[in-house]
């Protein structure tokens, strides 16, 4: 985007002085109004997002002494959140999210490519609508649907006698299978616009100049798509990492996940006075997700260079 702007913005800007002066004036007037257009969003985000985030940061980093009524800065909650069962839950969440996001990226791209190259508009519409629904079929209904399917007395478990094979839905593998159910449609939704942006002309040009299909994907298709794919991966990682409801309804505490730990601490299931550790754990989650985002944003910028 930043790459495009210098070429797009100076164009009209440079043309205005040589052209009619009226055009130049309207251009000058636009920026302040443009700021106003974005203002409600910024105010809203500051109030409804910035305020809770700030409260979270403050609570995670300070300790209030109820007797003296004083508040001091402390790293105690953070260091507690990085030890023992809390640390296990963090690594468990990261592993599960990375695995499911990688799988869903590959499978989602395959499905999206199958849909995009298909000439049937109805198929495309159906798949996209279904993806829109299924991508958000996460949470409680999904957990119950899978309990009915692959749970202990689930239909498929009983037909296939999966329990004899050692199948257990309430495990890491079970959660992976369930998470893919909403991650793959999400990837399809994300990547279809990018695949649409791959112009047939590029492929024709490559094939006409003697490239094989593999060479087209290796040197043109994948490099152009790579930022979108990685961006999609990051989105999936974020969704899987943040997922709470499915795991909460399903595994309870048998798989260590950070979201379950936070919910336990918040609802006072553990010990009194755990709120600050919950805040610190939330901060850990935000830092991990933030690191991934730091990779994502430059990629996003690169992808928009070609897929305009």
């Amino acid at each position, binding site marked *: *985007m*930043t790459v495009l702007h210098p070429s797009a913005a100076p*164009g*009209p800007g*440079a*043309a205005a002085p040589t052209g*009619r002066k009226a*055009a130049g004036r309207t251009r000058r007037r*636009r*920026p302040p*109004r*443009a*700021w106003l257009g*974005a203002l*409600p*969003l*910024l105010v809203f*985000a500051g109030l*409804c*997002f910035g305020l*809770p*985030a700030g*409260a979270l940061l403050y*609570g995670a980093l300070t300790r209030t002494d109820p007797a003296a009524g004083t508040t001091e800065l402390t790293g105690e909650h953070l260091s507690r959140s990085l030890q023992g069962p809390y640390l296990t839950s963090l690594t468990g969440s990261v592993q599960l999210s990375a695995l499911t996001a990688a799988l869903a990226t590959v499978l989602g791209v395959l*499905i999206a490519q199958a849909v995009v190259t298909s000439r049937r*508009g109805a198929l*495309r519409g159906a*798949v*996209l*609508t*279904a993806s*829109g*629904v*299924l991508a*958000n079929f*996460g*949470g*409680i*209904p999904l957990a*119950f*649907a899978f*309990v*009915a*399917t*692959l749970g202990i007395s689930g*239909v498929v478990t009983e037909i296939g006698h999966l329990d004899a094979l050692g199948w257990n839905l309430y495990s890491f593998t079970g959660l992976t299978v369930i998470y893919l*159910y909403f991650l793959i449609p999400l990837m399809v939704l994300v990547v279809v*616009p990018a695949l649409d942006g791959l112009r047939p002309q590029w492929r024709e040009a490559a094939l006409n100049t003697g490239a094989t299909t593999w060479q087209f994907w290796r040197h043109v298709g994948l490099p152009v798509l790579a930022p979108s794919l990685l961006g999609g991966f990051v989105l999936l990682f*974020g969704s899987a990492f*943040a997922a*709470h*409801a499915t795991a909460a309804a399903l595994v309870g505490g048998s798989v260590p996940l950070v979201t379950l730990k936070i*919910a336990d601490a*918040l609802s006072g299931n553990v010990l009194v006075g755990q*709120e600050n550790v919950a805040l610190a754990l*939330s*901060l850990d989650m*935000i830092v991990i997700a933030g690191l991934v*985002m730091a990779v994502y944003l430059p990629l*996003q910028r690169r992808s928009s260079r070609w897929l305009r």
Partner: protein
Amino acid sequence: MAALTPVSRPPVSGPPVSTAPVAAPVKPARRRPRYWRGAVLTVAGLYFLTPLVSSFVFTVHVPNQGVTFAAYSGILSADGFTESLFLSLSLACATIALALLLVVPALVAVRLGPPRLRAVVEIVCMLPLVVPPIALVTGIATVLRWGPDHFSRTPLYQTFLAVQNESFPVVLVLAYTVLALPFVHRSLDAGLRAVDVPTLVEAARNCGAGRLYVILRVILPNLRSSLAGASFLTLALVLGEYTVASLLGFRPFAVWIVSVSGAEARMSVAVSLLSLLITWALLLVLSRAGTGSSAAVPAAGPSTAPAATTPAASAPAASAGGPSTAPTAVPGKE
């Protein structure tokens, strides 16, 4: 008779023999991708349909009793069903309205305003992705606790109470809007990417259109499918949301399902299935509304078709004002 059949057969078997060599070179070239596509879509279809089908079987088939629909017939009379569903639907409407009202003007402003604004808006809209719902809830719960702790004697306390009103918790609308921002932004940004906003606005303004008219009659029609898409995502997000609502102590649809599951396992699965169908039906209605006037074009069409034709028609008008805009507008539209 005996003489006739040999005579009549060759003409019948003849054409297939003659067409086979003609069709042969064409078909393999076309079919190869089709097999691949078919295999991928079949496997995907199996994976996505199996849980739905077996959930249905699970709710209908009771071991040792045979087929019964008791799990479904009991839903409507179940305690709290209609209230929680109505609450979820009204929360969804409010969230969609708020999210679109916030994001559409901001994104149009981004295209017309200074380049830096784009980065700011993008970061603001993507930040909720960094903060998972459960972390947001811990933050919100902390802020809500300030109400009784610090503001109980100020007029602000009334706001705290009003926001947490049981019958319509505004705090959930605010939280859901925050959660929906990344998706709404992504959808609308992708839609706007196919539209050359500066050129369109310039062309419309040159023709004498007012600013509001430009937004309502030029920009929004081009965005119809991505507006519908953004609404879908938000609607589905709100209908299925559990984390924020349950931890803040409210009782919309998803929380209700869990509260039922303990006593009535079959009914909870039945309601889960129905919630998917309800969402599906609503999305279909919304997508009809989204692509309303261009009903002849299949669902996928409108996103590209207007974008491809309108700027092409308006490009000459823009290039009359500044020759340098034409090269930037045309290659993007091919």
